[in-house]
């Protein structure tokens, strides 16, 4: 019998529902309920070893390049293939571009839309919130839609199309961008940078990167009218006004995967990832990952364990004990949050280290990490584009992998992404994927410890249990790749109603 394995919940639509219990206007408990199973990994078993390069990007239309890269790296891990230096640079550039479109669309199209709800109507900033964040119409929304189209264009020049290309292959990439192509990419990056500096920051990249503490950030905000009225400044003011700096702290454990690793002497580029729990830092080691299924809708037998070994047998019947179609991945046995904030903290970024020391890993800090990430990335991309030698190959001929086990781990837009593959006779025996959303949106584990979002929800004050928009803010701050439904349960009154959070 073919082995079957589990499939993650990482998508853009309503495949996850949240249930919260509210007592005395405070969230007393929370459950994240994955409601969809596509079985992508089971689709791969028995197929040719290279077929993951075509199937796995289809896991997610927002980060298909990330899946493609992880799939190629898992195969390279088996054969020990060296990637051509140009190939590495192009992969980094494409991944960075994908990350930035995701970050900015998330903030201005998905996250900020919640500010337009009637719950915020009594705030003095409300008319401006609506003017900027109204879906399809708000000034920030329209400007983000226009500006973020530039990034897929850049990826298309290098890789053919976005989303769902398969241009990353073991050994490098399939295309041979010319100098003219690279110049086009630089023009596009420049255009995007101008928008980010002028519309989002109201200052230069260099200026914002000099902000190193919470106090610096306050000073920056007051420094000039462009800062105050720019999208970043306005977002900060909204988030503070809505109290987002005081809600959403989770377990305080942060996980980040290998980031943009380059073979040069720039330490900033050499980010191997890590796990931060309180003050304790450990370098990232994928052997420490285990998945639990006690509360996930999978057969208990053989479904737990390291992703390189665990199988997946979904259960049809809905079972209150097994409330989610998400498994519960754990690192060192504990839940961990992943994403832009975890990445910044693991990298020991001074601003975010200071902010978390002051206000914890709040909703505001988590969103801010995403909003500021492009500042660093744009500069790196520019450097990488300049480092490509258009006369050198982009692809190193690589033997097709036939047998063995491999792992591909990267820092995708939403956090740690891992692909685990086992091959024999040139075909896939076993494939397992753990996406960032599986980490953040996981249910309770075998020891009944809540997943990161479940934990972050507990203790959240809810002004109006009939309209618990605070729940939406907390859940959304993790940049889940989906639309959620929130079922609110009042312990005394039973089910009150359900809130759909339009993503």
């Amino acid at each position: 019998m073919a082995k079957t394995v589990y499939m993650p919940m990482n998508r853009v639509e309503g495949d996850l529902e949240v249930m919260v219990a509210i007592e005395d206007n405070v969230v007393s408990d929370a459950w994240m309920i994955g409601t969809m199973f596509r079985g992508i990994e089971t689709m791969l078993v028995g197929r040719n070893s290279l077929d993951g390069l075509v199937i796995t990007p289809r896991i997610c239309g927002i980060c298909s390049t990330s899946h493609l890269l992880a799939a190629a790296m898992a195969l390279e891990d088996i054969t020990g293939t060296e990637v051509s230096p140009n190939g590495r640079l192009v992969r980094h550039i494409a991944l960075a571009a994908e990350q930035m479109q995701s970050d900015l669309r998330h903030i201005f199209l998905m996250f900020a839309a919640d500010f337009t709800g009637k719950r915020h109507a009594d705030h003095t900033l409300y008319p401006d919130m609506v003017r900027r964040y109204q879906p399809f119409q708000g000034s920030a929304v329209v400007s983000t839609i226009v500006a973020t189209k530039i990034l897929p264009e850049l990826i298309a020049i290098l890789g053919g199309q976005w989303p769902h290309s398969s241009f990353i292959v073991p050994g490098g990439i399939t295309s041979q961008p010319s100098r003219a192509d690279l110049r086009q990419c630089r023009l596009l990056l420049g255009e995007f940078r101008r928008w980010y500096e002028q519309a989002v920051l109201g200052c230069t990249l260099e200026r914002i990167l000099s902000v190193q503490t919470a106090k610096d950030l306050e000073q920056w905000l007051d420094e000039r009218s462009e800062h105050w009225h720019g999208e970043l400044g306005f977002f900060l003011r909204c988030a503070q006004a809505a109290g987002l700096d005081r809600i959403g702290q989770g377990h305080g454990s942060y996980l980040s995967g290998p980031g943009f690793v380059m073979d040069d002497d720039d330490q900033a580029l050499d980010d191997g990832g890590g796990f931060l729990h309180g003050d304790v830092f450990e370098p990232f080691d994928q052997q420490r990952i285990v998945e639990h299924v006690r509360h996930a809708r999978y057969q208990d037998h053989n479904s737990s364990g390291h992703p390189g070994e665990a199988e997946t047998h979904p259960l049809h019947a809905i079972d209150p004990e097994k409330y989610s179609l998400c498994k519960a991945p754990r690192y060192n046995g504990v839940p961990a949050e992943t994403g832009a904030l975890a990445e910044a903290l693991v990298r020991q970024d001074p601003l975010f280290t200071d902010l978390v020391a002051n206000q914890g890993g709040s909703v505001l800090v988590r969103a801010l990490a995403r909003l500021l990430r492009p500042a660093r990335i744009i500069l790196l991309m520019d450097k990488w584009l300049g480092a490509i030698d258009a006369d050198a190959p982009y692809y190193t001929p690589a033997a097709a992998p036939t047998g063995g086990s491999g792992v591909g781990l990267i820092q995708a837009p939403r956090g740690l992404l891992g692909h685990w593959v086992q091959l024999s006779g040139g075909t896939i025996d076993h494939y397992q994927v753990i996406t960032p959303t599986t980490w953040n949106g996981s249910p309770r584990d075998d020891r009944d410890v809540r997943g990161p979002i479940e934990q972050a929800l507990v203790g959240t004050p809810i002004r109006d249990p009939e309209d618990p928009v605070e729940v939406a803010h907390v859940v959304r701050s993790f940049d889940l790749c989906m639309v959620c439904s929130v079922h609110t349960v009042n312990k005394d009154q039973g089910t009150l109603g359900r809130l759909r959070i339009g993503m």
Partner: protein
Amino acid sequence: MPTALWMQCGACGGDTMSFLGMGAPHLPDFLKELNLTLWHPSLNRWEHGAYAQLLADLRYRSRSLDILLVEGFILDQSGESGGFDTLQGEPKAAILRQLASWAGAVIAVGTCACFGGIGKLGAVQATGLQYHHRRPGGLLGEQFRSQRGWPVINLPGCPVHPTVLQDTLCAVCENRLPALNNHQAPEDWFGILVHQGCTRNEYHEYRVEDSDFGGPGCMFFHMGCRGPLTYAPCNKVLWNGRNSKTNAGVPCFGCTHPDFPQEHPFFHTPNIVDVPLELPDGVDRAHYLAYKGMAAAAAPDRLVKRKSRV
């Protein structure tokens, strides 16, 4: 003001991302141009309870629905896998049936919604709206017609090309059914092969073949490219306004086919003595062999030596 509801089923969101990236006019202006009210689960925001109310109004026909757009495959086989895609406990397939019967027009956005797409692999046994892979049927059945008397309009592609979706919405908002081909996809967009307009065309013409990645040659003979067999406008209207997979050295995987994804390996062309088992659509084997033999002999040096970069 016409109304459109976008439903996501077994989807990756790629069609939504494609739609969001449409060329001029950009999405917000496009909606204004058509005077179209779009309800999209990823892009709209609803007040508490309002989305559930909207769905109920549409399902029970107290509000009109001009266009239903569906993204993603449908989990409905034998009623069992329906539990793998639910909305507040109810299988989405059941909700879709009600909405489709009320909608003026139904558009399947992307290969999954058209034919089942990648959902045909693996454990879930998915189907499309009016096709189950090649076979008419699917969720709604061969005889299904929307309120305007139209079959489901299929817009295949993984993802759908944004221009194709944009144009189809224009036609539907003018109350016109585009001319459809034998898989119910618009002829104007799916009457052209991926091969047409490919920058590797001349390499194909003279049979200058690649057998590994990273070259400029034709990928049809060895590397699994299905461009000469696949009807889609990828090399007519470029992706993201810039490029296409085949131009970038990625074989066409035939993602608009009803039987996508194929059973055999993606990066390999099944062939006999170096000639593919499946020839370009409609081509006679004997003539093709003779023509390709002569063409290879006539190949100019600049191609044989691969002097140009695609």
